[in-house]
């Protein structure tokens, strides 16, 4: 008897990267009827997706294209949680608090712009803060409550989307496979070369996160994606002490800052498992994996300033990740006219989990030649020149 192994049909799309963004692209593309192969040099979520947090925030984004994407994404994450579930999606709401009068005023101003863009933002008087967060410091100037803010467990979210894309969408997942080059037919990108052979495909999606610039380079195009380091402290498990995503108003200006130096602002949230996660720091120091105790101490002190009760809780570990940073703080999403056949879905900085669902949605629409729900012009790959 003679067995002839079936030659696997070439996929329609190769997605480079099995982080939360690549997973969302694969899920939506498979849902749109495309045959998808996902490749990652490591395991699922081995990049920044496994080294950050999972906040889905509309609160930290001023009115503009990123907010529009975030609003779509928040809705899509809720839909996905209802349909797929299993990734600790919580509509917990966000509470932004201001320590000073001037920060409070900024918060109110930002809120007005956001409200006009469709965000629900409710000012909270100092006396009403304990009703939201009983353990919050008593001397704050006020806050703003954002019911649309939510949270997911990013690694679970990536894994669930990929499992479903494989199970129901017929997608293939190949981990431990590094993309080393792109197949070309003249100008066109027609697949990838990998450490395990080449994979021809009609389209390639660059979802390589912080390494998106390196993948773009394989196509001979420039994408300035740089690492922006951030630390997270993990406490021992505690009962529910922090109910919402809580952070200081200064966080918003830190996120938007262009300077390479260290910025820290307290960001505090509880998790299903019990530990509290404490962020956040931002600095551009390349892929330096060192862990300066001074930064960890600053983060802990700032969290205790917001929640004095945390002074009695131990930090049990800390980790760091490298956000995929673009100079204008916007992700790169869409087809690259400089390399037809190549789509980008990378450079989401500190909002890649938040924006993943919408990114996958618009990438799938674009791959299928349909119009996208949000305008991709602000995210176009060739904008950096």
């Amino acid at each position, binding site marked *: 008897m003679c067995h002839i192994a079936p030659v696997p049909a070439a996929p329609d799309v190769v997605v480079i990267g099995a982080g939360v963004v690549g997973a969302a692209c694969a899920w939506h593309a498979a849902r749109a009827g495309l045959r998808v192969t996902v490749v990652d040099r490591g395991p699922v979520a081995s990049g920044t997706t496994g080294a950050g947090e999972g906040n889905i925030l509309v609160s930290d984004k001023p009115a503009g294209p990123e907010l529009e994407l975030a609003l779509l994404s928040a809705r899509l994450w809720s839909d996905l949680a209802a349909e797929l579930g299993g990734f600790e999606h919580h509509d917990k709401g966000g509470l932004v608090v201001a320590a000073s009068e001037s920060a409070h005023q900024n918060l109110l101003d930002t809120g007005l712009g956001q409200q006009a863009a469709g965000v629900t933002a409710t000012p909270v008087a100092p006396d009403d803060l304990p009703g939201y967060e009983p353990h919050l410091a008593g001397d704050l100037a006020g806050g703003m409550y954002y019911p649309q803010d939510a949270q997911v467990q990013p690694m679970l979210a990536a894994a669930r989307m990929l499992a479903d894309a494989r199970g129901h969408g017929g997608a293939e997942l190949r981990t431990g496979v590094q993309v080393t080059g792109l197949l070309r037919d003249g100008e066109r990108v027609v697949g990838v070369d990998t450490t395990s052979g080449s994979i021809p495909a009609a389209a390639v999606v660059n979802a390589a996160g912080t390494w998106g610039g390196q993948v773009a380079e394989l196509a001979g195009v420039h994408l300035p994606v740089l690492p922006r380091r951030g630390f997270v402290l993990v406490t*021992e*498990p*505690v009962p529910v002490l922090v109910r919402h995503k809580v952070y200081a108003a200064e966080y918003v200006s830190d996120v938007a800052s262009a300077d390479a130096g260290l910025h820290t602002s307290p960001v505090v949230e509880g998790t299903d498992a019990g530990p509290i996660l404490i962020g956040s720091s931002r600095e551009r120091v390349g892929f330096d994996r060192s862990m300066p105790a001074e930064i960890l101490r600053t983060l802990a002190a700032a969290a205790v300033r917001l929640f004095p009760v945390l002074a009695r809780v131990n930090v049990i570990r800390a980790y760091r990740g490298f956000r995929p940073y673009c100079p204008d703080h916007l992700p790169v999403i869409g087809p690259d006219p400089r390399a037809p056949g190549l789509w980008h879905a990378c450079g989401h900085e500190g909002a890649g989990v938040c924006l993943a669902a919408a990114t996958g949605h618009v990438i799938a629409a674009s791959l299928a030649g349909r119009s996208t729900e949000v305008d991709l012009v602000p995210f176009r790959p060739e904008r950096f020149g």
Partner: protein
Amino acid sequence: MSPPPPTFDFDGQAIPFRPGQSVGAALLAAGIRSWRTTRVGGRPRGMFCGIGVCFDCLVIVDGQPNQRACLVPARAETDVRRQEGSGHGNLS
């Protein structure tokens, strides 16, 4: 006759120990096999790895929860308590 061994207090019970012994080893020697409950299921836990790796043996030492009984050296002045769940129930 040799003097009685030193003891530490475990929820009101005097637990004898030898110098250099860990709190966990002394509890086991006294026939006590579990001194904490898990957070979700309330299941009993005590010593497992015995070398500070598994965090199964957590206990409240001098008011501080989540101390590894297998690592904390026993001393006469040590106050040891059973731990319920996270041990931080008093914070909420």
